């Protein structure tokens, strides 16, 4: 449900970073915020618990520039990953245009990734959206841990687990180091814009 204002030639779109608890959704946004401060008109908004976990969401408006004469503003959101905050996740997904699913590469998180992806599918369906039709990217985060002796899943294993049916673009990344964070963002923006093309 992008918001296209033809009077002011402005497009507002909502991109949501989804995934299990502690997978690195907020870290993705924090990296983007550091890298593109000059394009971001306001402070990043984070609603956190005292333990620094996302309680409601993080919010980062991001000016992409002009496409076909329209100013494009992407509104980036994260959801709280912890299972108990499901009602909040559903609220944040209202009006979503595109999703980055951040999967945790840690072997111990294998099941959490699956639960969260299924939860995404259900919550999109609650808003009458189909996970097979919405612009979606899977980001395999924490790849930097591979070299540190911490057990991580192979990309093939994660593809099998999460992307066998979806067949959406997937990107290995490290949000903490910044590897492929911007690549992920650019890709999801271009997919979002492609899905709007008809509307403009």
């Amino acid at each position, binding site marked *: *449900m*992008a*918001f*296209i*204002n*033809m*009077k002011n030639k402005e497009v*507002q779109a*909502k991109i949501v970073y989804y995934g299990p608890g502690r997978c690195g959704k907020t870290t993705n946004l924090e990296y983007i915020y550091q890298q593109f401060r000059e394009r971001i*008109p*306001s*402070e990043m*908004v984070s609603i956190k618990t005292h333990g620094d976990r996302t309680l*409601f*969401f993080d*919010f980062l*408006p991001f000016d992409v520039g002009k496409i076909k004469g329209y100013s494009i*503003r992407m*509104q980036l*959101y994260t959801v709280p990953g912890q299972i108990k905050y499901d*009602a*909040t996740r559903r*609220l*944040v997904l*209202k*009006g*979503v245009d595109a999703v980055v699913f951040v999967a945790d590469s840690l072997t111990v998180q294998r099941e959490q990734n699956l639960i969260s992806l299924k939860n995404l599918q259900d919550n999109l369906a609650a808003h009458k959206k189909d996970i097979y039709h919405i612009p979606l990217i899977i980001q395999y985060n924490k790849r930097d841990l591979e070299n540190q002796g911490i057990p991580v899943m192979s990309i093939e294993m994660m593809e099998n687990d999460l992307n066998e049916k979806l067949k959406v673009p997937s990107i290995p990344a490290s949000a903490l180091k910044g590897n492929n964070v911007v690549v992920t963002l650019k890709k999801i923006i271009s997919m979002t814009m492609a899905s709007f093309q008809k*509307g403009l």
Partner: protein
Amino acid sequence: MSPHDKSISLMEYALGQDQLDKIEKILLSELVASGVHCVLLIDFAGNIIAKGDNANSRIDVYSLAALSAANFGAVEAMAKIVGQEEFALLFHKGETESLYFSKVNEELLIITVFGKKISLGLLRMKVADVVDKIRRIWKTGS
């Protein structure tokens, strides 16, 4: 409505330029002229549909809209938990600036930022009047 009209369009609703102009005019003449610092008409996804402010307002309206949509959604969910359809009065009082939220319909919400110049009672009456007018404009488009 043709897609080439100067309008706002979404999958779920559409407002023409004429309707938008009318709404912005009402926000300015009925609320900003009465001393409201800033007023936003937003949808429940957090998008700003229309806004009006006095020239002195330096508010981060995009963050305010995102947070208000989420806050309103959360409060509505709380109302349901205690068996209410909704809470009639949503008001946050600050020392110099206060916020008042009012639901227009299933899609839209008005957020008013105001100071000490205008009382809550008068503001509520004015906002109720504006909500009524926006609903009528909305109907002409749907």
